[in-house]
């Protein structure tokens, strides 16, 4: 067995991205360790999603590097990889959960086909096996098995989001990027998805980078937190520490702005 803290799974050094003269994010440094969930919080326009897209290889940063410790290839610079490699990595070792499930799902095909796509992309060619795996995953994300052949268009928003999670996790990724996975859902549905994510992260020993503007979500799911403002990381630390004893003025404002219920 490997030592517990062998090497960081994801290692980010001096990452920066601008759009023209606008700075989207700059000077981002962090390490993500196996099994860890890192939250990125901040207001709209603070560069959270741009940073996430740079991490996942969907956007090319101008400065800095993202090093991922791949199970198949060892440590690789995500942005130095060939497109073929990067795409292979992103559908085998990674997952990406979009805020809008429609972007992450194929709306025109059944739930089973959605879950099975990653399996088929890496060579699964047994219909019965694919279907069985897809049903198992529907179970795990708490969708009734008899909805397997229904299209996601017939699903509710919460179910779509859970289907998207299943579709990503079926290939047993090691690292999942999540962009506001509970955004736009009502509170009870949010709670259910958070619950699900928390148990899946634990049972599958997933690492995750989670972007959210909801401090409650961050508190529930993440181990560590980075607070962004205007493209820069203004504070980072253990989630409870950051939320209970915020040091930076902006973080204090964020924490104070949570409505007491």
């Amino acid at each position: 067995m490997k030592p517990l803290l062998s090497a960081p799974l994801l290692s980010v050094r001096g990452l920066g991205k601008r759009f023209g003269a606008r700075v989207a994010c700059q000077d981002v440094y962090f390490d993500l360790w196996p099994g860890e969930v890192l939250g990125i919080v901040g207001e709209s326009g603070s560069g959270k999603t741009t940073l996430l897209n740079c991490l996942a290889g969907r956007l090319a940063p101008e400065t800095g590097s993202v090093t991922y410790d791949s199970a198949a290839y060892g440590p690789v610079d995500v942005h130095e990889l060939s497109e073929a490699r990067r795409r292979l990595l992103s559908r085998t070792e990674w997952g990406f959960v979009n805020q809008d499930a429609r972007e992450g799902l194929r709306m025109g095909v059944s739930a089973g086909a959605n879950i099975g796509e990653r399996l088929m992309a890496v060579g699964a060619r047994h219909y019965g096996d694919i279907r069985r795996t897809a049903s198992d995953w529907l179970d795990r994300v708490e969708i009734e098995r008899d909805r397997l052949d229904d299209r996601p268009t017939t699903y509710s928003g919460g179910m779509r989001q859970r289907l998207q999670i299943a579709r990503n996790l079926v290939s047993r990724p090691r690292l999942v990027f999540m962009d506001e996975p509970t955004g736009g859902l009502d509170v009870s549905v949010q709670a259910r998805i958070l619950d699900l994510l928390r148990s899946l992260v634990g049972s599958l020993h997933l690492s995750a980078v989670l972007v959210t503007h909801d401090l409650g979500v961050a508190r529930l799911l993440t181990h560590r937190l980075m607070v962004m403002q205007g493209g820069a990381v203004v504070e980072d630390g253990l989630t409870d520490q950051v939320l209970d004893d915020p040091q930076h003025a902006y973080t204090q404002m964020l924490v104070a702005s949570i409505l007491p219920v």
Partner: protein
Amino acid sequence: MTENNAKDGAYNYAYLDEQTKRMIRRAILKAVAVPGYQVPFGGREMPLPYGWGTGGIQVTAAIIGRDDTLKVIDQGADDTTNAVSIRRFFANVAEVATTTRTEEATVIQTRHRVPETPLGEGQILVFQVPIPEPLRMLEPRETETRTLHALSEYGVMQVSLYESIARHGRISKGYNYPVMVNGRYIMSPSPIPKFDNPKLDRSPALQLYGAGREKRIYAVPPYTPVKSLDFDDHPFEIETWQQCCELCGSKDSFLDEMIVDDDGKRLFVCSDTDYCERRRTPAEAAE
């Protein structure tokens, strides 16, 4: 129109000018070198509408010579309007002999069928292709489909087959059934029935595919493996019929169902007219 347009100088030989033919030949050579890869070419306006075989006719024009014997079939038949027109066109502008006999032809331009008579070395089969991109219905972006081909990312094609089984209990695609060429590129075999797919596999004849509207040429060189996509537990199958051909009695050719009177009386006959006729007159065939 005079008797022979090529001779009196009204047109260049085989209708297209020499530069165009060279350009198309270059595309064909590249297509042959990379089996199943869609090579763009500068498609020209042809004297027939898109959808009637403008791609096929340009490929034929680029490869045909005076020594060739041309056969043209449409849905397996030699005597339909499109087949007759294209055959007459080339007889006129390229001064080639034409035939309906499969084994006599050196170039066979076809739409929707592969002849029942096995093809041999030295024969060229030219397909007319309406939609060359097999992933088109699954991924509308051309930039993305090209990337998928380049990276050999074909999960989405399998997804469509999965969906077909989930919905219909079997792979319901009956024509234009996607194939994997030489273990590398997924290719649309043009709208031939899946019945004909096995004939493409390791065929001794050269197969050229021309898509006029989308301006793509692709090819399968002789003896190239062509595999129809399927699942391990839902293997590829071809159509079968209860009946045999009403005219020639063939049990192993592709049958068309025809309604012959107002009472809905139906008849099953070979779609390949040459094959059917030759079976009915064995004496002539032996000549």
